[in-house]
């Protein structure tokens, strides 16, 4: 909504032949070298992975530089699982899965510092179907992935989706709650906005394989991704560009989510 508004202003200016874009150099500095925790536990075995890295300079490359040698534990009701580091900065527990209704804890110990978080695994809302619909988006008929499900009326639900087109993960955050849609049949459309006209990486064509993961997340993780998508993705249009609201205590950024996951794959007709 907000975006279409901005696009219209820009569209109007473009029409006048006046808007212009260019890369600029800004002197950005002081990344603090903070620990980054990207931690997920799902209801499926093999999905549990905790990635540790550090914040980088703006001018550095985007490669993942893992942080080794941390002690990473996930605990629940006195059961503690120690994760093993399989690659630099990547810690896994292949046999560990969670279940809805439980709260899980994360404890990362590194260089004597402790970083903790808890997350509640919410109930799993089943995906009814995944389909492709065609929609007129800004004058172009565009194929869009559509996830159908029924939102349960009796509780507050938070969702996150991940989309893969021809095996490539789409770099977009799709989060929603049921604030205005509680108890309804939902068709969640995973739009890919903001692409240039000559950019075809995320075009959906007949014969393509599309995979969507539907995640049920808790309120804090929703808040994390909501604030991340509105204020830390580099589109300087939110009220206050800022670090997302993290559920991790300790001097680190990132999140820990105990979430359910359901995957569906279709071939585009």
């Amino acid at each position, binding site marked *: *909504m907000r975006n279409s*508004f901005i*696009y*219209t*202003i820009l*569209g109007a*200016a473009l*029409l*006048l032949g*006046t*808007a*212009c*874009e*260019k*890369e*600029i150099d*800004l002197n*950005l500095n*002081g*990344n*603090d070298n903070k620990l980054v925790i*990207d931690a997920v536990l799902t209801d499926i075995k093999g999905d549990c992975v905790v990635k540790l890295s*550090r*914040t980088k300079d*703006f*001018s*550095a490359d*985007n490669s993942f530089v893992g942080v080794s040698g941390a002690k990473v534990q996930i605990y629940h009701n006195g059961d503690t699982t120690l994760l093993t580091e399989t690659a630099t900065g990547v810690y896994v527990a292949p046999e560990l899965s969670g279940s809805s209704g439980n709260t899980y804890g994360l404890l990362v110990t590194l260089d004597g510092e402790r970083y903790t978080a808890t997350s509640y695994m919410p109930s799993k809302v089943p995906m009814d179907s995944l389909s492709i*619909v065609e*929609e*007129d*988006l*800004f*004058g*172009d008929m565009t194929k869009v992935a559509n996830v159908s499900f029924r939102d349960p009326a009796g509780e507050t639900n938070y969702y996150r989706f*991940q989309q893969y087109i021809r095996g490539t993960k789409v*770099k977009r*955050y799709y989060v929603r709650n049921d604030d*205005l*849609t509680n108890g*309804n*049949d939902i*068709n969640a459309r995973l739009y890919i906005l903001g692409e240039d006209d000559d950019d075809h990486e995320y075009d959906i064509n007949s014969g393509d394989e599309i995979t969507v993961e539907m995640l049920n997340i808790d309120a804090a993780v929703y808040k994390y991704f*909501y604030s*991340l998508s509105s*204020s*830390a*993705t*580099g589109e*300087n*249009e*939110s*009220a*206050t560009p*800022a*670090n*997302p*609201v993290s559920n991790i205590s300790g001097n680190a*950024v990132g*999140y820990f989510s105990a979430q359910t996951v359901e995957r569906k794959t279709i071939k585009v007709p």
Partner: protein
Amino acid sequence: MKSKLLLIAVLLTAGKAIAQQKHTISGTIKSKAKGETLIGATVRVSGGGGTTTNEYGFYSITLTDGKHQLEYSSMGLQTNHLDFFLRKDTVINISLEDESVSLGAVTITGTSTKRSLSTPQMGLEKLTTKEMKNVPVLLGERDAIKVIQLLPGIKSAGDGNAGMYVRGGAADQNLILLDEAPVYNASHLLGFFSTFNSDAIKDIAVYKGGMPAQYGGRLSSVLDIKMNDGNNQDFGVSGGIGLISAKLNVEGPIQKDKSSFLITGRRTYADMFLKLSSDSSINNNTLYFYDINAKLNYELGEKDKLYLSGYFGKDKLGVGDLFGLQWGNTTATLRWNHIFNNKLFSNTSLIYSNYDYTISINSGSVNADIYSKIRDYNLKEELQWYPSSSHNIRFGINSIYHTITPGQVTTSETSQINARTLEDRYSWENALYLTDNWKVSDKLSATYGLRLSSFSILGKGDFFNIDKDGKIVDTLHYQSGDFVKTYLNLEPRLALSYKLNSTSSLKASYVRNTQNLHLISNSTTSSPTDKWVASTNIIKPEISDQYSIGYYKDLFGGDYELTVETYYKSLQNQIDYRDGANVNTVSNAIESELLFGKGRAYGIEWLFKKRVGKFSGWLSYTLSKTERQIDGINNNKWYNARQDRTHDIAIVAMYQVSKKWTLSANWIYYTGDAVTYPSGKYQIDGQTVYYFTGRNTYRMPDYHRLDLGATLQLKKRKRWSSELAFSLYNAYGRENAYTITFEDSKEDPNKTVAKQTALFKFIPSISYNFKF
């Protein structure tokens, strides 16, 4: 307190009256050509003393009996001299001729345009029609607000932004009045145009400081705009056709000399250009506005006059059928002037004001309309009393009932969105004020006053208590008619002027302002969907105390003016957002997304102006700082407010080459706004996320721009006159940043880049204006 002040004033005047026989001259000053009453026209008395007309052209002056020479003058009009022997109370109504009537024969003198050095009012900027007419503007659409932003201390929020920052204040801290009615969103087309059609404007005044007590409700400034009354002499039509808009103005007498009407309308047709595009993503779109100003005045008798004025404007913006946004203001003002006697003038106003917007979304399975509004009913009563030639007292009351509809979501039956209505918010704002303009001596004048303001939050509705993390800990239910909370504030106002000699003066002022309506914006740029929120039990009234000192010097016989003003403002209960705030929240208390703290702003403003002659214009420079300190932001340290700009320069020049050609140019430069940029980055879930180390710690690139304009007066026929206006906006094509975004490079996804978008390079325009 008030009654005491009044008593002192009475005693002072009574004491003098005993000494000598005195009588009063009163009346109305108008322009001869159109019969428009003149605001701020000057009456000077030989041997010292004088007064100015009020906002309805009325004046009253009490003098000792005997022979006097009176001089009546007003900007742009011929001065009128009158010899008069005073022996009883007398009504003298004066009509002043247009200067242009005898243009060519008379060189423009300047006496009439000279500013008054002895009025205590400071921080006041006024515009003449000439300035409004000749300064080049975007797409040739004359716009008083854009010209005002070239004056020191008043800053445009930037390309594509509606707001205006005055002396470090935020965009919502300006009280914008159109014939006394508050205008809640003064922009059209996303800020490219203001809601004020220059053709319908009679007078425009901006108070940056030292606001007199009759104004209240906003911290930073008052923009007081008065509409023309309409020509009560002759029927007239004027209009213009430009590249993207057309306008028409019709006015004329209902009863000659006594009553008149005026209707002015504008419509832009930018969307017709959209249709020309072959790109279906553009030609489906809608983008236009229209507005109408109308006014009617009627003389009921010698002592009574009625005015009815109204404004209606609407903007429509649509992206195909997918998304629509429309917004607009409606105002209506009914006023009754009554002259009780030659020393007592009364005005009663009934005012209606409404701002609303509707967002429509119609994408596949999501169909919803979101509607929001703010509506005021407003009653004002003011008495102006002229007890003697050295006092001018105003006393008034003002009562406003506000209704705010924060958001109504309506949906179609098939929509997966549930309909919802957020509770309306009700509040009642009252003020009582007294102010006296006192000429203490030939050198010293003072305006002192007091405003008592109250703001009551009324039920029905739910209010909240929140903890320090913004979580709701308690919900309080109120019924209709309940008073949730009342805030009382006493606002003293004082302005002094000391005339050093005939060409220079010193002025000082102190003013306290309070504000109970706050604008919550969902982005760093302003948008029509920004929300007005009234004070609540948690959102406290914003308070500002401003101190300022100024030096005023007339040079070269008054042809040149130098003004230097400096100010310091301290602000309480300022509002900013929590990190990661969701101000689009449709269910929770908005308070849980906000933080409150204090602010300070200070600066110095220079204005060097040449008013008269073939070459006129000004140079303005502001050096300023504006900061906030709010617990929870930037480690509780002072930080730059978004609108903080260190340097701000404007140069405006107009040159009348011949009777036919007028050329103009302006150049502006300012330090980029304080802004939040990432200091680093990291990867979450395979995507680049930016890392921030503080709010508003970086700067936008500096802004500068040159605009050029030319007006060609076409051949005049008997009653018909017309002109062509040319302009070139951003003449040297500077790419000023509208937004700066950060993204993974398209060429090398392993790198991250900063990208700047500018809205305009050169924009030429031509428009044709006519009058008959």
